């Protein structure tokens, strides 16, 4: 019983296929039969070069895009056709652009109130109540940025790092079934990026969130999470499990990448010759 609970699949992608500009010279197969399963509490990092299909994968999970073939399951429910605004009940998301995850002309507490309603029905009750304000304050304290004293400040006035930290909090504090992080530290300077990386680690561990993180930073991909996958040309070309990941270094990863690429090139050559 305990075992089945632990191994419960939170996110399942089955045979996902997505092609852009089909039938034109620009046709591009973005995802080619991708299978991926995340169990509850899994923290998977995704690396891959530009155009590997990482962002398309994120967009298909979040419902921004609908796959041409295949299905998406969250906690056992088939959500393949569910529109983004319905699906985001289950999904917390942090974007690469620090401006994307918050509403600049609204205050910190109003932004938090919007995020707080993510998995509830929105009503004509006040968004920021006394009780909620207390909860928001406590949640903001976990960021250690002093934002708890600036509840009425407009978010547009915050720095990129502060906004991204707030986005991270907004995406997570309602404990979504799945957390999607799309290169969420890429647009920040190194010290801010480190702060957000540490916060991510702390929050995901504390709330035991099932997380999928795209990153360009191999070191970050190795340090964070319990599993790692590498994508290339719309396919998952490498899966590193929990045991293997503990031994992983950037050098090993690069070598592995070269090896797979080399094999592919060799087979391409074989086909062409």
């Amino acid at each position: 019983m305990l075992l089945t609970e632990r191994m419960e699949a939170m996110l399942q992608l089955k045979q996902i296929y997505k092609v852009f500009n089909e039938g034109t010279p620009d046709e591009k197969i973005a995802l080619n039969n991708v299978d991926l399963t995340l169990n509850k509490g899994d923290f998977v990092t995704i690396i891959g070069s530009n155009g590997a299909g990482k962002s398309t994968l994120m967009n298909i999970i979040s419902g921004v895009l609908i796959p041409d073939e295949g299905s998406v399951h969250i906690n056992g429910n088939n959500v393949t056709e569910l529109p983004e605004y319905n699906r985001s009940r289950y999904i917390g998301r942090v974007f690469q652009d620090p401006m994307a995850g918050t509403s600049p002309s609204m205050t910190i507490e109003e932004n938090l109130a919007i995020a707080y309603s993510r998995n509830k029905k929105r009503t004509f009750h006040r968004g920021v109540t006394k009780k909620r304000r207390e909860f928001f304050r406590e949640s903001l304290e976990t960021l250690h940025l002093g934002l708890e004293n600036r509840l009425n400040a407009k978010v547009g006035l915050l720095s990129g790092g502060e906004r991204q930290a707030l986005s991270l909090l907004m995406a997570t504090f309602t404990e979504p079934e799945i957390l999607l992080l799309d290169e969420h530290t890429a647009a920040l300077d190194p010290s801010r990026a480190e702060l957000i990386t540490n916060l991510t680690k702390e929050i995901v561990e504390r709330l035991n969130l099932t997380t999928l993180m795209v990153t360009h930073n191999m070191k970050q991909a190795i340090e964070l999470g319990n599993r790692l996958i590498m994508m290339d040309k719309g396919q998952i070309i490498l899966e590193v499990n929990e045991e293997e990941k503990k031994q992983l270094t950037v050098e090993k990863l690069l070598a592995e990448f070269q090896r797979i690429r080399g094999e592919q090139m060799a087979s391409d050559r074989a086909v062409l010759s």
Partner: protein
Amino acid sequence: MFTAIFGSIESGIIYAIMALGVYLSFRILDFPDLTVDGSFVTGAATAATLIVAGVNPFFATIAALIVGFIAGAITGLLHTVGKINPLLSGILMMIALYSINLRIMGRSNVPLLNEETIMTKVRDFWSSLGIDSMLNNMLLAMGFEGTLPRTWGILIVMLIITILFKLFTDWLLQTEIGLAIRATGDNKRMIRSFSANTSWFIILGLGLSNAMVAFSGALIAQYGSFADIGMGIGMIIIGLASVIIGEAIFGTKTLARATLAVIGGAIIYRIVVSLALRVQFLETGDVKLITASIVILALILPQIIRNQKVKKQKEKKRQERLSAVDRKDGGHAAVKTDI
């Protein structure tokens, strides 16, 4: 002079409800909604036709509010479901409403001169209170000379109604649904990622906005004792002028402040227009030109002021650099003469 200003304050207060509607679509939803030109008349036409048919003026005005909501919601549907560009959705609805308004009225003008309207009811009620003579005596005691207003009732009752609409807007925009409407205008991508259907909030927001516009139209028709097919022309620009003037003068620090600013802007706009019309060579028909000029000025002036500031700063920096170079040169020359 006093009568003219008093009149423009009265009508300004009624137009302020329309301006609040425009604020909701233009500023909050970031949706340039031209439906306003049509829905203002729809409100007036609905109320006037019902009143002439013998319906209680209060119900007639509420009916105008509901019809306005429907008109706005249809514009929202055109944009969200029909995927039509916001400006075009509004224009299409505006044109469609022109015919609908003619259908409602049956002709291009419905007079309300001998009908019982909200305004006549307010006047009757007010004169029974006897506050008018009190206020007028106060004015006289303060040394006021000129024509005294016929009644203060309309001014005060309309002000109360407008403030109720303001308070409603303030309250609405703080609710969970209101926060989602605001975020829809601010960052659609973000609010979708927090399980909000932006289409629904656009439809709701435009519905509420046009409900206010139509309500204002219904009151204006009763205030002026007629509904006319042409009374909505340029209404969107008047609303926009009120919003911009109000924001510039009263500021937008908080929501409550911003909505108050819109009301203030609407009143000031009316006063400016009535003063402008007192200039000899301007005629009543020039009102639209004056309005357009006010909006153009309000849009361009801030840019010019900003550019001037930047120029001044650059000039200052340049002078500083030049004087620094001068000092260096001076020092150099001094050294030379020393040699």
